[in-house]
């Protein structure tokens, strides 16, 4: 039987969200951008004209050339193809973002969940620790960490992770505090469910929209942050291509050898833009769903 007025067809959860997502052309564009970039990054070895330009190589006969037939976007100060290096730069940026978020998100989410649900002293202590990490200027924190670790890709990622998780803790803390007021949490409590169950099985699934949205937006910001670190020489080491360092180093040649930093800057813009559009789209989609 059904109550009058009840929708008779139960739709699979999420399909409404997908519809909402699809209806916004900007979000779809974002998805396309991201897909293309991911595809290019994954198959960089096959798609780039000079894959060897990623390694320790310099073709000083061809250094600092503007865009041409052979080198679509020009070459850098080492005579390496910019297009190739940008695509590999994407590869690195993506790995970076994925690793950073894969570590920062669970840490921040768990801290936020526990502090938000437990309240009291647990809340106070955990959130003050979070505040400490928030109040130290992020780059200072990252630099300090990079300072005592070797400046490698992995350590760079760790450093960024250390400054990233508090934002998730904050976000999830707020979401959890709101969700904890919801009836379903009360219901689970009255039934006698364990704290673990309530936090992870009841509240956490409702944090996913916030987490996913923030993660997609953050992919872009991690890349930006990594590029700021590279600007200080604290990121990936040469010759590995890194979009941030490319912009930073290239900027020294502005405006004469403009291609050195303009293309990587545009490349950063595109990837960050792509993920931001996806993030915006997700946010709207999740809103439409509820």
């Amino acid at each position, binding site marked *: *039987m*059904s*109550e*009058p*007025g*009840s*929708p008779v*067809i*139960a*739709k699979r*959860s999420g399909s409404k969200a997908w519809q909402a997502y699809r209806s916004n052309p900007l979000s779809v564009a974002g998805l396309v951008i991201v897909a293309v970039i991911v595809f290019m990054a994954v198959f960089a070895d096959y798609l780039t004209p000079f894959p060897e330009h990623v390694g320790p190589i310099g073709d000083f006969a061809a250094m600092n050339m503007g865009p041409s037939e052979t080198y679509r976007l020009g070459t850098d100060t080492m005579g390496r193809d910019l297009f190739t290096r940008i695509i590999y730069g994407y590869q690195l940026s993506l790995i970076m973002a994925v690793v950073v978020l894969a570590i920062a998100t669970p840490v921040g989410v768990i801290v936020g969940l526990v502090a938000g649900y437990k309240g009291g002293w647990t809340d106070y202590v955990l959130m003050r620790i979070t505040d400490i990490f928030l109040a130290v200027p992020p780059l200072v924190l990252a630099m300090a960490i990079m300072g005592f670790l070797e400046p490698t890709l992995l350590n760079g990622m760790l450093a960024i992770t250390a400054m990233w998780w508090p934002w998730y803790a904050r976000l999830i803390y707020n979401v959890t505090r709101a969700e904890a007021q*919801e*009836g*379903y949490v*009360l*219901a*689970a*409590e*009255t*039934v*006698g*469910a*364990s704290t673990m*169950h309530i936090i992870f*099985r*009841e509240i956490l*699934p*409702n944090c*996913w929209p916030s987490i996913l949205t923030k993660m997609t937006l953050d992919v872009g910001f991690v890349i930006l942050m990594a590029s700021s670190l590279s600007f200080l020489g604290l990121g990936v080491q040469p010759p590995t291509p890194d979009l941030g360092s490319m912009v930073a180093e290239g900027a020294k040649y502005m405006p004469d050898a403009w291609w050195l930093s303009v293309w990587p800057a545009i490349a950063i813009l595109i990837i960050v833009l792509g993920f931001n559009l996806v993030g915006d789209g997700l946010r709207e989609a999740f809103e439409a*769903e*509820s």
Partner: protein
Amino acid sequence: MSTPILELDNLGKTFEADGHRVVALDGVSLTFNRGECHAIVGESGSGKTTIANLVLGLMPATSGSMRFNGVALPAERTKAHRRAIQLVQQNPLSALNPRRSVGASVRLPLDVHGIGVSRERGARVAGLLEEVGLEADYARRSPRGLSGGQRQRVAIARALACEPELIVLDEPTSALDVLVQARVLQLLQRLRQERGLTYLFITHDLAVVRAIATRVSVFQKGRLVETGPVESIFANPQSAYTRQLIGAIPVVTEEEAKIRNVIRAGTPTPLGTE
């Protein structure tokens, strides 16, 4: 004759918020008898939900005590208590986790209390859903796709899953349509009769009380104004406040309007004592 299931003895609750005190419940003594539907009515803020919270052990009382089946209720509830006293909330929209299936929600108490063998629980969930008038395949659905009445039925099924003795219903139908409300009330009535449940039924709608309750307690500003069997309250409300509540009920027939107006005016009905 009737056995008390829950006794409140001088129960009080005071909230301290931002440095000012709110007396939400002011020394309430009340007895709930087994098998009854005991309604608690009162305007917004009169302390109805506070009683529910105290009974469920969701917050400690400031003063007084409670006895369940003759035994004092501890502040930290045992699993048995958590199982024996269940809750159906006012807002069916938020009472079900939107990201878990209906089945998972109904199954939760079975898992928590280890009711039945794990393999059989699926069947049990189906049985419960059927009992509240939903087909078994609702278990797979998300609460998002359900109407208010359906959600409230799921919430009732979840409460039933514990095989409780007492169910606290905090305004279970006030967010529903009149027609849907009537059906949910019907369901509750039937379940009580079949299972011998006891209801602590919180509402502000006296018409609903008239239809479903056996006893009524009227609250105002944290105090018990009057209590008694439903017929006598309606026949002869003692306090002006109760009369006011009854007077506000919208009615559909002339005859009822007449009854209501009499009550509102405060003139004693034939049963009256004055």
